């Protein structure tokens, strides 16, 4: 089996348009869940969101590109470009066939779909844009990435709600580890601020009226965010041979399904995902230093996640550092795993844990070592990144600090 290096990172989210901009805000503990640009009419029950505030498509694409690609795909492509640039990899010769692109998105291009529905059902016009399918399809980002870099290997998109991009990362990790491909661009993207989708989230009554406060006793729900995260995964020897910058390592992946309830979380499913991931990494629970929790800020998730962590890590759960960066960049849904994997790798690299902000009151039911409100220095080797999706689909990635 091959070791799997991470040689490039890309990030676009409410915290910034690049990894470095976002990292600065992550360690400063800056909450970018702010009043939404469109408050809705009538107003949504929640007024804040974590939009990719500084993202200006025309800084990255031509007007013609914008005709063909919608927001979630644009975000994916920009993050992929950053990861590829950092890695310095060149997709030439056989590497074109031996590289994969695996992305996650829970819903794909909602804006275009909704425009079509407005024509059909509000305006009674039976013809919709012929670009509806290529703009809407969940693989639009993956396909554009393959076109831009001339990658001919496996390329596909996984839609497992909030676990989409952890499933994508895990799949890509296993493919590189098993030697099916030499390199992979893996991650995910989501653009949630489309009216119909926001109304659907509103109807579920899980969105906090103000901001999400993961693990805090006064938490009232999640905050929606948009963005993209991409990782360049590469066969370790290949990366070393070309002198690539090694940002970190992926060492394990585990997944499970609850088979319990379509939306209500349980302890066993998430625990199994973490357990299989730790076993896949061939480490013990005592070696886990940091967990970037799923930590949505809903009453149910944070309690069950706490219990799941306790059941898997045992005594280690008293000391393992835990934070939910969703408190700053929001819940980016299909992009969450990738965005948070980037945060984990940077935390390991810099020895600095980004905090759970908006944290006000300890909850006895969430009795973990929560890094609250301010970043914390810590020497760490291994981090877990959790995602637990509606539908009861759980995925955990194990990341390791780059050897120096």
């Amino acid at each position, binding site marked *: 089996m091959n070791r799997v290096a991470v040689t490039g990172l890309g990030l676009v989210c409410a915290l910034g348009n690049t990894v470095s901009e976002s990292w600065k805000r992550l360690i400063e503990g800056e909450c970018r869940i702010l009043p939404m640009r469109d408050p809705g009419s009538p107003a949504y029950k929640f007024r804040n969101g974590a939009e990719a505030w500084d993202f200006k498509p025309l800084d990255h694409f*031509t*007007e*013609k590109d*914008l*005709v*063909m690609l919608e927001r979630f795909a644009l975000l994916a492509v920009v993050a992929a470009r950053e990861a590829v640039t950092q890695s310095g990899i060149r997709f030439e010769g056989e590497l074109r066939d031996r590289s994969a692109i695996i992305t996650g998105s829970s819903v794909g291009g909602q804006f275009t779909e909704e425009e079509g529905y407005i024509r059909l059902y509000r305006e009674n016009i039976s*013809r919709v*844009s*012929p*670009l509806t399918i*290529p703009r809407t399809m969940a693989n639009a980002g993956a396909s554009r990435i393959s076109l831009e870099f001339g990658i001919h290997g496996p390329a596909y998109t996984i839609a497992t709600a909030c676990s989409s991009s952890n499933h994508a990362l895990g799949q890509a990790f296993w493919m590189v580890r098993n030697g099916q491909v030499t390199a992979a661009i893996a991650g995910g993207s989501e653009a949630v601020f489309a009216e119909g989708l926001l109304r659907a989230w509103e109807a579920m009554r899980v969105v906090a009226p103000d901001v999400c406060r993961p693990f805090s006793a006064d938490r009232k729900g999640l905050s929606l965010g948009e963005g993209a995260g991409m990782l360049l995964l590469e066969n370790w020897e290949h990366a070393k041979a070309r002198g690539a910058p090694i940002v970190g390592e992926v060492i394990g992946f585990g997944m499970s399904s609850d088979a319990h309830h379509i939306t209500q979380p349980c302890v066993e499913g998430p625990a199994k995902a973490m357990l299989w991931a730790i076993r896949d990494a061939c480490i013990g629970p005592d070696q886990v230093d940091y967990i970037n929790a799923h930590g949505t800020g809903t009453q149910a998730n944070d309690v069950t996640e706490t219990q799941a962590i306790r059941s898997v890590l045992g005594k280690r759960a008293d000391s393992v550092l835990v934070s939910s960066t969703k408190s700053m960049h929001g819940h980016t849904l299909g992009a969450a795993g990738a965005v948070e994997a980037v945060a984990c790798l940077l935390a390991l690299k810099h020895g600095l844990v980004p905090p759970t902000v908006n944290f006000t009151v300890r909850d006895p039911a969430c009795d973990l070592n929560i890094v609250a409100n301010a970043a914390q220095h810590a020497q760490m080797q291994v981090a877990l990144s959790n995602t637990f999706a509606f539908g009861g689909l759980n995925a955990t990635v194990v990341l390791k600090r780059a050897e120096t």
Partner: protein
Amino acid sequence: MPEHVETDELAEKVLRVIAHTQRIPPESVSLDSTFEALKIDSLDGINIVFELEKEFNIEIPDDGVQNLRSVRDTVEGVRKLVEAKNLAVPPGAA
């Protein structure tokens, strides 16, 4: 082809729709431009057809779409459909 046909209002409108849909400067589109020269591929073509249908309130049949290769083909195709529509529904008809 007589000069007045080259520069009539309908042709100008078609040229504008093509330029806008392709996000290219209007002056880069002329009656003599081919789709190949304008880098209009099959997907662009159906998008242009969609916009033309909206602009002229016509329905362009699928088999007509596949034969479009140039701006002139497009203008003449649209002209025929607009004329047919006008014949079918005389001005002032209920």
